[in-house]
C-alpha cells in the first residue's frame, strides 16, 4: 500500500472509486474533507482478490471503517480480459437456417492487408454449437416461415448433451419482430437452466453480423461475470461493506452489479471509460466544454474527444476484433506509454514501442531487473522524474540503471545519453501527435479549438509538447492526474442506453409512431433504473436518432430536445431533420436538403446524477519543500528548474517554466516560457501559445 499521506480521522459517508488496471489498483476515497488516493498491486489472475485485499488493508490501518462506506463503484477489465483471453463460457447459437456462418464470415474482410500470416480470431461460438432452425422473417418483419417448436426442443436436447453453459439466439430481422426469439426463450426454459440471451433484447438493431457478435459476446460472458460479481459481493459483505457494488459501463455511466451481469457486453470498456468521465468532470469545473483527453500509462495511450461537454460516442466499437455494437465512449488507443521500449530498426530509424517493459520487469529506472531503454528511463536521465520521489508506487528511481539503458541507444547513434533520451521522447511524441490527429482533424475537428487534458501516470510529462505540436492553446492537468479514472467513477451518472432500429424515411413517420417506440424504450429504462433505487423524478432522458440520407450506409447520431418534456411534436421532427442537415454539413462538408432523410435507429439515454455532489478535487496532505534541480528540455544542455510538490500549490498561484511539478501519482513537465495557474481544486492550467 502506498498512501499519499498518513491519515487518521475517520469521517463518515465515504464514497469509494476503484479502478482495477493490469498493474495497479487505484483507489480513491472521497468525503467532506477531500480526496485521498492509494495504489495497490493488482492481481490479474483474480482481480477481485486484489480489491478485497486493498480494502482489508485500509480497514486494518484504520483509514476506513467498513460501515462508513456509502457507495462503492469500480472500473474493471474483467470482461475485456475474459474476452481477449478466450475465457468465455461454452456457448451455443440458435439462428435462422442458412446463416449459421454469419458469426464466422463477419464482413469478409481481414484485419491486416499485407500479412500473409494474418489470422481471424476464433468465433466465440464454434461451428458445431451453431444450430439452425427453419424460421424466417422478411425485411418488413412479416413471417415467411413459422418457428417449428419441435426443432427447438430437439436442439435443446443436443445443447444439454453438449453441456453448454449459455445460449445466444439471433434471428434475421428480429429487431422488427422479436416473437420467434421470445418463443425460443420459452421453449428452452422448459428444458434447461442456463442464461439465454436474445439479440432483440441486447441490440434490437439491423446488421446481422454486428448483432450476432454483440449477442454472442454478451451470452458467453454472462456466466463469467455472474461468478465475478457474486464473489465480489460475498467477500465485501464479509468485511462489512454494505452497499451494492456499482460498475462503470463503456458508455461512461455506472450501473449496479445486478444489472451489469445480465448484459456484460456493456462493461467491456469499463476501465478507459472511467478516465474520460473523470476528464469530463474536470472540464465542467473549468468551464471548458471542448477537450482532447490523453490518458498515458505504462503501456498505452488512450485519446478521446469531448465536444460541447459531451464525450464522443460510437456504436461501431470492437474488442479483440469482435464487434460490439452497443454505445460506448469513443477512445483511440496506441501502444505508447512510460514503459514503451526504444529500439533501432534495420533501416536505421529510432523507434519507440509498441513493445513495453510492462510492470515486470518495468523500465530500467524501476530497478526491478529491466535493462531495456524505455520512455520513463529517458525522462529519468533528463531530470524530468525525481529519483528520490516515488513514481507509480516505487519508493525511488535508479538513475544509473536508466543511463545504462539509454546508453544502448546512444552508442550506435554516436550521440550523448541525453541527446538519445531527447530523441526517444521526440519519437514517442510524434506517435502520440498522430493519435490525437486521428480523433480530431481526421474527424473534422480543429485541435486549436480544444484544450488538452492529460492524465495517467505519464500523460502530464508529455502534455505541453503534444499541445505545442498540434497548436492546442491550453493544457489542463487535474490534481489527481494519476488516478483520474478512479475519481471518474465517483462523478459519473448512473444510467443506461437503449436503442431500436427503425429504417424508415422520416417522411413516412409521424410523432405518434416515434413516441410509441420511445415509450417502449422508456418503460424498460424506468424498470431498470427503479431497480437501481433511483427515484423517477431525478431521471433525465436524452433522445437522439441515427439519421442518414436514403441510400447511404453510414449514420450520424443527432440529438433532439423536444420543445416540451418527453413529448415529441411534428415540429420537433422537422427540427430534427434540419439538425441532421446541419450536422452533415459540419462533419462532411455538404448537405442535400432535397434528399429523403432516413431514421435508422432511435436512441434513448436515461441517467440520474450521482448520489452526491462533486467531491473536492484537492489532494490532501503536507507538501515537500521546493528546490532547484537541473533539467534537460532540449539539446542546449541542462538548465535550473524548480521542483514543486503539486500539493504545495496555492490557489491562483502563478506557475512559470522551467519547472517540474511532481506528485506521487504523476509529474507535470513545464518547459521554459510556459506559464499557467493553479486553481482552488489543485487543477493546473497552462497556456501553450
Amino acid at each position: 500500500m502506498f498512501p499519499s499521506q498518513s491519515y487518521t480521522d475517520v469521517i463518515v459517508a465515504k464514497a469509494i472509486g476503484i479502478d482495477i488496471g493490469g498493474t495497479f489498483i487505484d483507489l480513491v476515497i472521497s468525503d467532506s474533507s477531500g480526496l485521498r488516493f492509494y495504489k495497490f498491486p493488482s492481481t490479474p489472475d483474480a482481480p477481485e482478490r486484489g480489491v478485497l485485499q486493498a480494502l482489508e488493508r485500509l480497514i486494518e490501518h484504520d483509514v476506513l471503517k467498513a460501515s462508513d462506506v456509502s457507495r462503492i463503484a469500480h472500473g474493471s477489465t474483467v470482461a475485456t480480459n475474459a474476452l481477449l483471453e478466450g475465457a468465455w463460457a461454452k456457448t451455443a447459437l440458435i439462428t435462422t437456417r442458412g446463416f449459421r456462418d454469419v458469426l464466422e464470415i463477419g464482413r469478409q474482410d481481414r484485419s491486416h492487408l499485407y500479412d500473409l500470416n494474418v489470422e481471424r480470431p476464433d468465433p466465440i461460438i464454434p461451428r458445431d454449437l451453431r444450430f439452425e432452425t427453419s424460421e424466417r422473417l422478411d425485411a418488413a418483419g412479416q413471417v415467411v416461415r413459422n418457428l417449428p417448436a419441435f426443432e427447438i426442443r430437439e436442439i435443446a436436447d443436443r445443447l444439454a448433451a453438449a453441456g453448454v453453459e449459455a445460449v445466444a439466439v439471433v434471428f434475421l430481422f428480429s429487431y422488427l419482430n422479436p416473437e420467434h426469439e421470445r418463443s425460443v426463450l420459452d421453449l428452452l426454459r422448459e428444458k434447461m437452466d442456463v442464461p439465454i440471451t436474445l439479440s432483440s433484447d441486447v441490440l434490437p438493431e439491423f446488421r446481422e453480423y454486428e448483432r450476432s457478435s454483440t449477442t454472442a459476446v454478451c451470452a458467453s460472458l454472462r456466466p463469467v461475470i455472474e461468478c465475478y460479481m457474486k464473489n465480489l459481493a460475498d467477500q465485501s459483505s464479509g468485511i462489512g461493506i454494505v452497499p451494492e457494488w456499482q460498475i462503470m459501463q463503456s458508455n461512461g455511466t455506472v450501473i449496479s452489479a445486478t444489472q451489469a451481469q445480465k448484459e456484460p457486453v456493456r462493461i467491456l470498456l469499463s476501465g478507459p471509460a472511467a478516465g474520460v468521465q473523470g476528464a469530463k468532470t474536470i472540464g465542467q469545473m473549468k468551464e471548458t466544454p471542448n477537450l482532447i483527453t490523453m490518458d498515458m500509462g505504462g503501456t498505452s495511450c488512450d485519446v478521446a474527444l469531448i465536444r460541447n461537454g459531451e464525450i464522443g460516442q460510437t456504436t461501431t466499437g470492437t474488442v479483440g476484433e469482435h464487434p460490439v455494437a452497443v454505445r460506448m465512449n469513443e477512445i483511440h488507443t496506441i501502444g505508447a506509454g512510460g514503459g514503451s521500449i526504444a529500439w533501432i530498426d534495420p533501416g536505421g530509424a529510432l523507434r519507440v514501442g509498441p513493445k513495453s517493459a510492462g510492470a515486470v520487469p518495468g523500465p530500467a529506472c524501476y530497478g526491478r531487473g529491466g535493462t531495456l531503454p524505455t520512455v520513463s528511463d529517458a525522462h529519468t536521465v533528463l531530470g524530468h522524474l525525481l529519483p528520490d520521489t516515488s513514481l507509480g508506487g516505487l519508493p525511488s528511481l535508479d538513475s544509473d540503471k536508466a543511463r545504462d539503458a539509454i546508453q544502448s541507444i546512444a552508442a550506435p547513434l554516436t550521440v550523448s545519453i541525453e541527446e538519445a533520451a531527447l530523441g526517444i521522447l521526440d519519437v514517442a511524441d510524434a506517435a502520440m501527435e498522430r493519435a490525437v490527429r486521428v480523433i480530431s482533424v481526421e474527424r473534422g475537428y480543429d485541435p486549436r479549438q480544444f484544450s488538452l487534458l492529460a492524465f495517467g501516470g505519464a500523460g502530464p510529462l508529455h502534455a505541453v509538447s503534444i499541445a505545442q505540436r498540434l497548436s492546442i492553446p491550453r493544457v489542463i492537468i487535474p490534481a489527481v492526474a494519476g488516478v483520474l479514472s478512479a475519481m471518474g467513477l465517483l462523478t459519473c451518472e448512473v444510467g443506461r442506453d437503449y436503442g431500436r432500429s427503425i429504417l424508415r424515411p422520416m417522411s413516412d413517420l409521424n410523432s405518434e409512431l416515434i413516441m410509441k417506440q420511445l415509450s417502449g424504450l422508456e418503460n424498460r429504462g424506468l424498470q431498470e433504473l427503479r431497480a437501481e433505487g433511483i427515484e423517477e423524478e431525478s431521471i433525465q432522458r436524452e433522445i437522439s436518432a441515427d439519421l442518414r440520407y436514403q441510400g447511404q450506409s453510414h449514420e450520424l447520431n443527432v440529438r433532439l430536445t423536444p420543445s416540451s418534456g418527453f413529448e415529441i411534436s411534428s415540429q420537433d421532427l422537422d427540427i430534427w431533420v434540419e439538425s441532421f442537415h446541419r450536422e452533415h454539413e459540419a462533419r462532411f462538408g455538404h448537405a442535400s436538403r432535397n434528399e429523403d432523410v432516413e431514421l435508422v435507429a432511435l436512441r434513448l439515454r436515461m441517467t440520474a446524477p450521482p448520489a452526491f455532489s462533486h467531491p473536492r478535487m484537492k489532494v490532501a496532505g503536507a507538501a515537500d519543500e521546493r528546490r532547484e534541480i537541473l533539467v534537460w528540455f532540449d539539446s542546449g544542455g541542462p538548465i535550473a528548474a524548480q521542483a514543486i510538490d503539486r500539493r504545495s500549490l496555492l490557489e491562483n498561484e502563478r506557475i512559470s517554466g522551467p519547472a517540474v511539478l511532481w506528485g506521487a501519482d504523476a509529474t507535470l513537465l513545464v518547459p521554459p516560457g510556459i506559464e499557467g495557474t493553479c486553481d482552488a481544486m489543485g487543477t493546473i492550467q497552462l497556456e501553450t501559445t
Partner: protein
Amino acid sequence: MSQKPNRIDAITLEVLRNAIAAISDEMNANLVRTSYSPNIKERRDCSSAVFDAFGRMVAQAESIPVHLGAMPYSVEAAIGSVSSFSPGDIVVLNDPYAGGAHLPDITFVAPVFIEDRLIAFVADRAHHADVGGKEPGSLAGDTVEIYQEGLRIPPIRLWEQGILKDDLLQLILANVRTPDERWGDLRAQQAACTTGIDRMSALCLRVGESMLTNAMSAVLDYSERRMRHQIGQLPQGEASFEDVLDDDGVSEGTIPIRVCVRIRGDRIEVDFSGTSKQVRGPVNAVFAVTASATYFAIRAFTDPEIPPNSGCYRPIEITAPEGSIVNACLPAPVVGGNLETSQRIVDVVLGALGKLAPERSMAACQGSMNNLAIGGIDPRNGKLFTLYETMGGGFGARPTKDGIDGIHSHMTNTLNTPVEALETSYPLRVERYELRPGTGGEGQYRGGLGIRRDMTCLAESARVSFLTDRRSTHPYGIEGGDPGALGKNVVTRNGEETALSSKGTVTLQYGDTISIQTPGGGGFGPRSRREKAAIDRDLREDRL
C-alpha cells in the same frame, strides 16, 4: 544496415516520416469523410499520397492494396503533360494508358508551392461508381475495347490557378450516369488535395524547406534500406511460376501468366516474359496494375511494415512485355485487369517467391473478387436499383497454419452488404450465406473454405452481370497440398439448375435463384501429415 545514417537522421527521420505519413492519412480520412458515394465512404476504395518535387512517392495511405504503388505513374503522367505548374493547379486523370489503372479510378494530382518554389506534390485516387460506358457501374464483363468501358480522361488541369474549368467539368459530367454524385465525389477529392497542400505547407514552415526536402529523400532511402535488408535475407537464385485465368469473358480458352523471379543480392527482378498477349475481353492489365500487384506480393512476402513509398520499390525491377496481358496497349479493355488479373499476378509472383523460400510461401487464395452486379426495378417503390458486391472465399494454407475460411484475399478487402441491409434495399431474398464444406484444398494445412450466397429475385425480372474466375481452373496447393475447389455460378428456375460461365450476364425472373459459390484456398503439405486433432475438429465442425 547497409549504410549508417547520420545521427540526427535517426531521430528526425522517424519524426518527419510520421509527420508526412500523418498528412497522407489525413488526406485519405478527409476524402472518405466528405465523399458522397458508398463505394468511397463505406468500401473505402480510395487512397492518398504525398510526393516530393521529383514525383517520387514519399508516403501513401491506402485502404485497399490494389492502389499500392500505382499512383507514381499518375504523378509522372501529370508532370509529363503539364509544362509548368502554378499554385492552385489540379490535374485530373483516369486514362489507364496515361497514368491510370482502370477507368472508374479517377486520380487527382496537385503541386505544393512555397512562394514560387514547387516543393512537393499531393495526389489522391478514388473508385467512382460510374464513369459511363455500356453498362451501369462501368464494370461490363464483355467489352472488347476501352471505348466501351466509359469516359477516358487524359491528364488535364481541371483547376487552373485555383479556378475550376467549368467547361471541362460539364464535359465529364455529361458522360456519366449519376452526375450529381460524381461531382460530390470529385469535390471530396479536391478537398483532400487542399488538405494535403495546407498540411505540407505548414510542415515546411515548421521545419524549414531544406530540412523537409532532405527528410523526404531520407525517408525514401530509409524504406529502400529496409527493403534491401529484407531482400538480402532471401536465398539467391531464380524461380519461375505459371498460372492461368479461366477465360477473358468473350472467347474460350485459358490465359497463361508466367513470371520468373530472380533474387540478385539485395535486388529482385520480376520478369513476366512468356505471359499471354493481350486478349479481346476486359481482363487486360496496364503496367501500373501489374506493378501494384507485384509490389503487393513482395511487400507481403518480405516485411509488410516497411513504409510504402518509391524508395521501397527501388530494388524491384519489373519486366512486362508490351502488348501482353500484364502490359496492355490501346485499345484493349482493362476493367477486369484491376479486379481479376491482379489477383492472378499475385498468385504467380508469390508462387515463384515461395519456391525460393518455402518457409514463407503460401498456397493460392481463392484468386477472384467474385464481382456481381444486379439491376432492375424494385416492385415496392417502382425505382431502379443496382447492387454491386464482391465476395470472399478461401485463403491459401500457410507453412504453419490453415487458410482462413470465407475471407477476402490479396488485392481487395471490401466489406459485404449485410443481409438485413440488402433485403431492406433490394427486391432480393438471401436464401443462405454460408461456408462451403469440402472446398478447402486438403493437406498438412488445409486451404480456407469458399462461401456460398444464394439470392432469389423478388422483382419481375433483374439483370445480373458477373465477373469471376477460378470456375474452371483450380487455386493451386503447394508442397504436396491439394488444390482448392472450383467456384460455381448457378441459376435455379423451377427447381432446375443451370451452370453459368465465369463471366457474363443473365436475366432472372421472379422466383429464380442465383447461387454464387466462391473457390476454396489451396492446401499446404501432404495430407498424410495432417494432425489428428485438426482432422477431428474439421469433422466435428463439418468443414470437410
